[in-house]
């Protein structure tokens, strides 16, 4: 098996991830890559409480995730990797060979404008996504049943 999905989602572990993707892909483990969560036992416990007992969650900083990815790719179970922001995923694309990135949710916030129902970007985040798109296949899709939106359509806001 392998890591089935590399997802940028600022809500990290939530319903769409655990149920929406987790059930159809038969996800057995989630790799959560976030420097803040990796430094907090309490935050890790919070996210563990959100998954069913048969699903494991592993926490890494961006730095140590790079070295850990080969092990997860060789795991016999289906896995899903999450980052909360574009910069962290960029690190994995550059240094760990991630080839395809799913933009699953970047929600409303200061300085961001809406591009999709579930994607809001600041000018700097748009630049980061364009750069990511040079190195990986970047598409947006919140749940498996939704249309996969190409990066250019996402940036153009054509689905709004």
């Amino acid at each position, binding site marked *: 098996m392998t890591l089935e999905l590399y997802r940028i989602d*600022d*809500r*990290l*572990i*939530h*319903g769409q*991830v*655990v*149920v929406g993707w987790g059930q159809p892909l038969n996800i057995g483990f989630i790799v959560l890559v976030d420097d803040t969560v990796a430094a907090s036992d*309490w935050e890790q416990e*919070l*996210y563990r*409480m*959100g*998954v069913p007992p048969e699903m494991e969650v592993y926490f890494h900083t961006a730095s140590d995730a790079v070295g850990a990815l080969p092990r997860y790719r060789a795991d016999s179970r289906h896995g899903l990797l999450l980052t909360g922001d574009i910069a962290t995923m960029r690190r994995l694309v550059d240094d760990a060979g991630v080839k395809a990135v799913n933009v699953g949710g970047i*929600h*409303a*916030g200061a300085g961001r404008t*809406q591009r999709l*129902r*579930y994607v*809001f970007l600041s000018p700097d985040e748009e630049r980061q996504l364009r750069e990511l798109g040079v190195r990986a296949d970047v598409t947006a899709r919140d749940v498996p049943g939704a249309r996969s939106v190409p990066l250019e359509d996402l940036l153009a806001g054509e689905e709004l």
Partner: protein
Amino acid sequence: MSSEQRSSGATTAPRAIVAGHADFAAGLVSAVQQITGRGDQLIPVSVAKLSVEDIEKLLRTRMVEANVRVIFTDLQAGSCTMASRRILRGMEDAVLVAGANLPTLLDFVFAEGRSPSEAARHAAERGKAAITAHGAGGEGA
């Protein structure tokens, strides 16, 4: 009689927040209102399009405004549940009920003799017990 009481004596002040995906909260609260006329004990909160930080901020604001210590949410892994766990950290008199359903809320709004936190714990048990499966070889097949 206080403005916060109906002719039946039922309290109308908010006692809990209901939050979840899409229109989950508004739908459940409207159902409680239709069945019991006591929907105003519950504050529905919708969080579509909000970031995790903003969900937490919104729920915290609603709790302070209404002076409530009980939150009902829909899903263990849901963003509202995650945010509520953060808010309730260190609040010993507060209760989060995750996985709430209509029977849960109906029990809660009729438990006016209990404190909100006691009523929430009782309602959680009632909500669990209210789920049954029928047919296909099971009960009543």
